[in-house]
């Protein structure tokens, strides 16, 4: 590399930096002018922050499926959104059954545990079927082939659910115990939000523990480091892949149950948007990295919840919360452009992708 710095900087780099500076400027300017407007009280900010944390927790659990599968197969499991979606679908039917028998409100904790376990099981099952039917036969195919299969699988699953269960939206039966709230500094903190955050953190700890301290977790890390070498060390790679899909699926199922606590409407196309955001979170944190996914998800949840009001109100944009999905996508684009390795990632996704 004997080129001078002037040769190394291309027009593209300048263009990218201009975009970056413009966006950074807009964000800073928007934030300052929003804060000077004094439109929102501190309790509104607190409320948005808690919503953001709860959302981030859900994204973190979905992101686990993306990040672990990516770590091992170097492939975006595009159909993961439907693995996620199958969780709430199951949860709705189980909850309706429990509500009919009256158990849902008599024994809320046991009921929730039943709902969570069944949904996780179903989601894991869907993930395993996907792996077996769609991905395993294509493990050595050119890169685009499994990705296209995954897109196909995503649509197939969505419309299978639509065909099986109907195209309408399902209301989630209310759990009375979760509808109470505490008032802290003038803000209502709902029990659902606390349950969601606590559930997500607990689930993350379990997953982190499995990956970090169990034998199979060690094997997973070995396979993601180097598949051939792991195989030579006597690790059954097929089994590890199956386990990874199952674990990611179960985690997505749990996310689905928690998500319906926050937004109690279930339909066949519900998986797409949260999953894209979870993928963004996984990339933001550094794909293939378990704590990174958690960090990225929390940041993204906060950005999405607080961001529109904080950055956009000051710029005079009407109804900024309409643009909250756009913020997530812009974060995705920016992170892939400026730091494709993510916050905690070390591996260069640019070379392996």
């Amino acid at each position: 590399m004997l080129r001078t710095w002037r040769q190394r900087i291309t027009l593209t780099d300048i263009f990218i930096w201009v975009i970056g500076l413009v966006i950074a400027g807009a964000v800073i300017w928007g934030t300052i002018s929003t804060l000077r407007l004094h439109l929102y009280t501190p309790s509104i900010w607190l409320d948005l922050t808690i919503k953001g944390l709860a959302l981030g927790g859900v994204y973190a659990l979905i992101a686990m499926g993306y990040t672990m599968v990516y770590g091992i197969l170097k492939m975006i499991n595009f159909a993961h959104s439907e693995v996620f979606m199958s969780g709430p679908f199951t949860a709705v039917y189980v909850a309706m059954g429990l509500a009919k028998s009256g158990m849902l409100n008599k024994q809320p904790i046991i009921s929730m545990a039943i709902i969570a376990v069944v949904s996780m099981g179903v989601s894991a099952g869907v993930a395993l079927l996907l792996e077996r039917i769609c991905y395993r036969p294509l493990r050595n195919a050119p890169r685009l082939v499994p990705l296209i299969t995954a897109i196909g699988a995503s649509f197939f699953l969505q419309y299978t659910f639509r065909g099986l269960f109907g195209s309408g939206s399902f209301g989630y039966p209310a759990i009375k115990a979760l509808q109470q709230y505490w008032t802290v500094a003038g803000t209502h903190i709902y029990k659902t939000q606390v349950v969601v955050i606590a559930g997500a953190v607990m689930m993350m700890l379990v997953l982190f523990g499995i990956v970090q301290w169990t034998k199979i977790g060690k094997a997973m890390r070995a396979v993601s480091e180097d598949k051939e070498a792991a195989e030579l060390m006597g690790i059954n790679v097929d089994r590890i892949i199956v386990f990874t899909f199952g674990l990611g699926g179960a985690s997505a199922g749990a996310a689905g149950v928690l998500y319906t606590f926050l937004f109690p409407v279930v339909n066949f196309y519900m998986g797409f948007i949260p999953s894209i955001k979870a993928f963004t979170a996984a990339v933001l944190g550094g794909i293939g990295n378990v704590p990174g996914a958690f960090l990225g998800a929390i940041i993204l949840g906060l950005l999405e919840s607080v961001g529109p009001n904080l950055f956009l109100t000051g710029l005079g944009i009407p109804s900024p919360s309409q643009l909250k999905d756009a913020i997530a996508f812009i974060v995705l684009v920016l992170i892939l452009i400026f730091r494709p390795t993510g916050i905690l990632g070390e591996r260069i996704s640019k070379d392996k992708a």
Partner: protein
Amino acid sequence: MNIESSIWKKALQNGLIGGVISLLLGLVGMVSALGTTYLISGVITMGQVLVLAPFLFESYSSMRHIPSKNPLTLLAVGGLTGLMGGAVIAVVVGFGKVVDFRAVLINASPVLFALWTFGLPLLPGVLVLLALALITGLIAAGFSLLPVRIRGALSMAILIVLALGLFRDLIVTVIVHWGFMQYAFLWIFAQVGMTIPGALVAFLIVGALVYWRSGVNQKAVTQRRTPRQQRAIRWGTWGVLAIIVLLLPVVLGMYFSEILDDVGIYILMGLGLNIVVGFAGLLDLGYVAFYAIGAYTLGVLTTTEAVGLLHLSFWGAVPLALVVAVFAGVVLGLPILRLRGDYLAIVTLGFGEIIRILVLSDWFAPLLGGSEGIQRIGHPTIGTLVLANQQQLFYVILAGIILTGFIATRLKDSHLGRSWMALREDEDVAEAMGINKVITKLLAFGMGALFSGLGGALFATKVGSAYPQSFSFIVSINILSLIIIGGLGSIPGVFVGGLVLVGLPLVLSQFADFVYFIYGASLIFMMLSRPEGLWPEARRRLELRGEESGPSPQEAPQTVMKNPGH
């Protein structure tokens, strides 16, 4: 001994898969939705075909695993596979009498159960079902015993009869224009589907024709002709094709012309996306963004409503719409083209969603109309003639397709096309060979954006309005599916894909609810079994087949010879 038992295990396994597929088709509602669509009037409905087809398919695939050619073994395996499939449905039917599935599965209706049991009571119904499943399996086995030539003729004849029955409405619309000639053909069609004698005659004629033609050595015939004769035949074929295409909207009438226009717009955009994905290997999932940009630019510039700007004519606005689309393509392309593969896919997807969200938002509502969209978009004019109806617009779309097709064909084997292909295969090597990565990729991206913008502009003028709902992610998936199923990188494949994936569901409106179900399934199926597509590009077929098993000595030279570029 071991092989023996594994044959039976495989048969049971395939039967189970067939049963589950058949069950799924029933439970998602396809069987009951098509339960009254007769293919042959009073004999067989599309719904019944859907129940039995998976058994046929699985039984036939059971045959492949059998080493022996003993007809009895084959028949037994086929029958067992079919029977197993039927048993799956039978068990569900039996359970359905005890438990009400309908509380959960909305399509497990009495109509479906009646279709599964052929309208008979439980026990005889199940027996008939099992018997038919067994027969289907035996037919599949018997089929594999036939000589290849008869097999080809039979399957073609069956397919044609099914297609005639399915497309009855379309065909009848066309042949009523034929004056007294129509009576020579109309009798083969009933109110729904075909008449029994009509089906028989069509079956025999097609079967005989295919049998006769498969006996003729095509290559020898072609070689016997002089070059001049060959050229005359080629030009003749093109001429006849051109006349047919030009007459299509007149012959098909207003309703089918609208479908034709939709197919045309999708083919046009498919040709553009084919450059990006097929030639250059950049998986673009946000293709709809440029489509939306083209449509909205045209809308804003030509609408007579208050939201519009400039109020240009259609011809004045189209170039501007294209410039805006290409500009957007370049602006998006510059930063993201250093990403590869799946990352590029996700970023473009994100970009498509950003555009849709912005269009829908209150922020841009004063300019773009928000969720109410833009109405009263201008139509193209020639002199004083306004091309406003679907039949007239077809010719504008056709002109667009011809232009796009011409550019795509010329680009494919040009220097640029080769550079795209090189980048697709190996970026680093291509760069080392002196290909400018950024410019080459940008050209592909911009070219794709150009054609997508053109498609959007044509769409806007065709519909006369632009709504944000028309520009969802699903459009990108539609176009992607059609070029993949047609064959990535193949230009005739785009036409095949467009006709099959966009045309068929619109013509067969009974399938409308299941379009994406079928898309998804066919994407998976294609990738697993035929990744090169229906009409593959010669080079890609070589690669994909080559990667799996290494090109076989007979296959390789043929594929090379078929490549028209040499």
